[in-house]
């Protein structure tokens, strides 16, 4: 790949480093981690012992160094709840999370692109207004409420779909639709407005002047150009998607990273929480890089 991709790859290293700093300091500066690991009535002595055991009495930079050394050795700490190293527990959950997020991204793109293109083609008609209204509504509804309403209607009232768990296709439908609604609501207006802008570009007039059919002009020449901002947008949505996945997984008891993290927080299992947040962030960065790569493939202007 070109200069751009090399630069993007190099940028990832400091970002990853900063992420570890941020996570580390958030955990250590926002309060005393021992206070939530021990029962309320724990003795001062027990507290001190735990602090000593966790190395919390050492200077911060030393603690950070130990933390980062551990990460490189695959040591993400010991989970108090599971009484086992955190990393394998977290790794085990990754496929479920990736499955859910991948399906939702695909689903939201498949929903958003045709709707956005058709709305742009039908600019000013009732169909256009309807799509617009749906997109705004989709953005305004919190994903967890959408999930609850889906359970209420499809799971409880009409009992069409299972409301929790993972394993079958049917169980995948509701959580992925929940996530996809919000994401596609963000993408639709962008597809629509970039299509509207692009049909007035000079090169579209050129394409028409060559006698290309309207289909070719729209779906080949205009669409490829409209895709560029859409990819950027999807890449920007990825952290939000993983954040949304956290709640969605909780609602639908989907055994992914998000659910693990939420239970980790409820159980005050610091190692699990830290490992989850680092892992999810790492995945986010990798997926973003992939989006950039795709962007490069489509737009030759970036490739140089």
């Amino acid at each position, binding site marked *: 790949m070109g200069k751009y991709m090399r630069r993007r790859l190099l940028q990832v290293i400091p970002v990853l480093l900063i992420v570890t700093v941020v996570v580390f300091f*958030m955990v250590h500066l926002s309060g005393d981690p021992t206070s939530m690991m021990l029962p309320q009535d724990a003795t001062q002595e027990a507290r001190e012992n735990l602090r000593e055991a966790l190395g919390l009495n050492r200077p911060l930079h030393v603690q950070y160094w130990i933390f980062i050394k551990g990460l490189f050795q695959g040591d993400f700490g010991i989970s108090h709840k599971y009484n086992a190293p955190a990393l394998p527990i977290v790794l085990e959950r990754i496929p479920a999370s990736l499955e859910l997020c991948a399906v939702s991204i695909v689903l939201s793109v498949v929903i958003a692109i045709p709707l956005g293109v058709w709305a742009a083609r039908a600019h000013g008609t009732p169909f256009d207004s309807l799509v617009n209204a749906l997109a705004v509504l989709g953005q305004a509804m919190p994903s967890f409420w959408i999930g609850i309403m889906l359970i209420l209607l499809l799971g409880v009232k009409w009992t069409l779909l299972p409301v929790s768990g993972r394993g079958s296709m049917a169980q995948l439908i509701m959580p992925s639709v929940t996530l996809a609604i919000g994401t596609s609501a963000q993408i639709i207006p962008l597809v629509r407005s970039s299509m509207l802008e692009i049909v007035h570009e000079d090169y579209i007039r050129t394409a028409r002047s060559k006698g290309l059919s309207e289909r070719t002009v729209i779906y080949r020449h205009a669409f490829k150009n409209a895709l560029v901002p859409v990819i950027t947008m999807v890449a920007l949505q990825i952290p939000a998607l993983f954040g949304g996945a956290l709640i969605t997984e909780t609602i639908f008891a989907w055994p992914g990273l998000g659910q693990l993290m939420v239970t980790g927080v409820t159980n005050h299992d610091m190692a699990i929480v830290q490992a989850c947040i680092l892992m999810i962030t790492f995945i986010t960065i990798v997926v973003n890089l992939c989006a950039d790569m795709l962007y490069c493939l489509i737009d030759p202007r970036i490739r140089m």
Partner: protein
Amino acid sequence: MGKKNAHKGANPPSGFRKYAGLLFRSQTGTIGFFILLMILIIAIFAPHIAPYDPTSVDLRGMRMPPFWMEGGSMEHILGCDNLGRDLWSRIIYGTRVSLLVGILSVLLAGAFGIVLGMVSGFYSGWIDSVIMRVTDAFFAIPRILMAMVVLMVAGSSVGVLILIIGGTSWVPFARMIRSEVLALKEKEFVKCSRSIGTKGTVILLRHILPNVMSSFIVLCTMNIAGNIISEAALSFLGVGIQPPTVSWGVMLAEGRKFLGTHWWIGTFPGIAITISVLGIMFLGNWLRDVLDPRNQGIK
């Protein structure tokens, strides 16, 4: 035509009247404005509007459905939750937390983001690189995860919630302001004042700051909507607002448990969130259309 001439005329309408005029010409803008106004009034006068104390338990009304259903009554128009608390009153009180957290966290994030964005865009070089990498890092960590970790360690209260939602949502501000400053830096009027030896900080505050204000205001408005949803999400997950304080997120979490039998408990708080967010987004969209100089004269 007449409007256009009036605009050019010797006495253009003053700022306020001009925008008021523009507002009511836009349908969604008007709707958004009235929704926000309504929410503000409800939040401020909640004790006077709410028919019941949101935390008072009425055993007779336990799980009472909304008034139009069998077993419902006009005493509790939206019904009651599992403890017999009036849902309508709870929703009214819920606006307080939502708006408070939404607005204050945006002010925090906005202040932080605008400073970082302006510094980063104006003084390029290593300082820009450092700020942008930090921004990338904060962007890559999903906000809700970051907030959960901090809330877990620090314990949760409205103050912490505002700090953490604000402290994790400044990234779009910094990025947008930076890119605007980068563009403005190349404009003639900035080059001009540089050429006559104006100090960097003066250029930044006098010439650049006013020019990024309109995008900043739009982004602020849009982020209030986003942060209201963040607050509800965190409270829904049990790490945000803690009962007995009333929050829409907490209500949704409670309602989720009774989904099979008492749908209204989990439905109405969601509608309240959706309407509020919708109103703020409408207003934000309208502001974007009006304040965007490229759109000037269209509306």
